């Protein structure tokens, strides 16, 4: 295939022509650039100490390194070593180093279970059997037409950029599995199709963690937490102003998992 392109537009046109099936899935191109130069630029902006403090906020100092780590543009061991060089003591980069280790952990699990990464590792702890969940994504969800500003906003963001903050990944997964009763496999496949960092190990096993098939309990969130974490960017409300997330955790747990064994 060609290697000579005058600019990014030429490359994009060429890829669109050579891979019409991929363009048919979604025709968007991300602003996130591939390649070592872009990865180095991204790495230079990493602030390990601020990451530890603010990573759970949408405005926080997340690294944006995942597309580069996923494709081996940056090696995991090399990245860990460079992060440690940036700080006085490894302890001050604790959270970032631990998150990088999660990647190693997921990969070890994948190495052990192989294609079973698509199978429930444990039963759901939601009070429902796996059969209860529907197999495919609802149309209103995948078309970003639910009327909920958070859900539609996140779906559009993933389709357009190929990237989501980890909190948005967890929350949209929880919405799909626990509010819409969709099997995690459908959501995991949808994300793999769009994420620039789409990684079978981290992606599927994190979906299983949210679903509770690789965790002791299901992950959920409420409206207050959503608004806090997203810095007010999303209300979490439907078009009529009501929100499916507007309850305390106790109320949500009782409503979403009426048959679950209490933890």
């Amino acid at each position, binding site marked *: 295939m060609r*290697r000579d392109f005058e600019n990014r537009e030429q490359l994009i046109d060429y890829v669109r022509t050579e891979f019409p099936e991929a363009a048919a899935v979604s025709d968007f191109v991300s602003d996130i650039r591939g390649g070592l130069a872009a990865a180095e630029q991204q790495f230079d902006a990493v602030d390990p100490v601020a990451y530890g403090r603010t990573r759970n906020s949408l405005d926080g100092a997340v690294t944006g390194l995942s597309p580069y780590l996923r494709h081996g543009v940056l090696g995991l061991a090399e990245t860990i070593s460079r992060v440690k060089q940036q700080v006085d003591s490894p302890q001050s980069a604790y959270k970032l180093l631990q998150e990088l280790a999660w990647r190693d952990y997921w990969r070890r699990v994948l190495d052990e279970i192989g294609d079973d990464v698509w199978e429930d590792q444990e039963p759901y702890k939601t009070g429902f059997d796996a059969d209860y969940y529907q197999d495919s994504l609802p149309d209103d969800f995948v078309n970003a037409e639910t009327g909920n500003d958070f859900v539609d906003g996140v779906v559009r963001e993933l389709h357009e950029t190929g990237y989501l903050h980890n909190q948005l990944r967890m929350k949209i997964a929880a919405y799909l599995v626990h509010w819409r009763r969709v099997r995690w496999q459908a959501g995991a496949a949808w994300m793999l199709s769009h994420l620039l960092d789409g990684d079978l190990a981290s992606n599927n096993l994190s979906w299983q963690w949210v679903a509770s098939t690789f965790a002791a309990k299901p992950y959920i969130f409420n409206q207050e937490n959503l608004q806090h974490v997203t810095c007010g960017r999303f209300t979490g409300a439907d078009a009529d102003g009501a929100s499916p997330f507007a309850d305390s955790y106790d109320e949500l747990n009782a409503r979403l998992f009426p048959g679950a064994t209490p933890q």
Partner: protein
Amino acid sequence: MSNAITWVHDEMLSPAWQSPETPSVFIFDEQWIETEQISLKRIVFMYECLLEMPGVEIRKGNVVAEVTRFAQEHHATRIVTARSPLPRLKRQGAQLATQLTVDWIDPEPIVTLPEGVDLKRFSRYWRRAEKQVLRND
């Protein structure tokens, strides 16, 4: 003349994996793109990575068939590539190994764990890994 080629797969898109004396090839896996519905933006991202790896020949199609063809074109009997836990890459490597010698290079490990360690929960992994990850280099 070298008797090895490098099979660059999608977990090794860095010039660090290239060696000037070994011909290198990357194949866009059409079956993977179709079955996993890989979207355009991911392919553009990967293509941009490949453009910063000057010696790599870029192809598309069936990975096993194309890597085999590339090896034949270079009279190579050995394939060098990076070890990966991805079942797709393991399967392709196993198929290639029926015809050619495949050298799996391990990416540098971040921790060393005993055989058969319990990976049921991250906390169990982290109990063993923490000191190694946090140690001063």
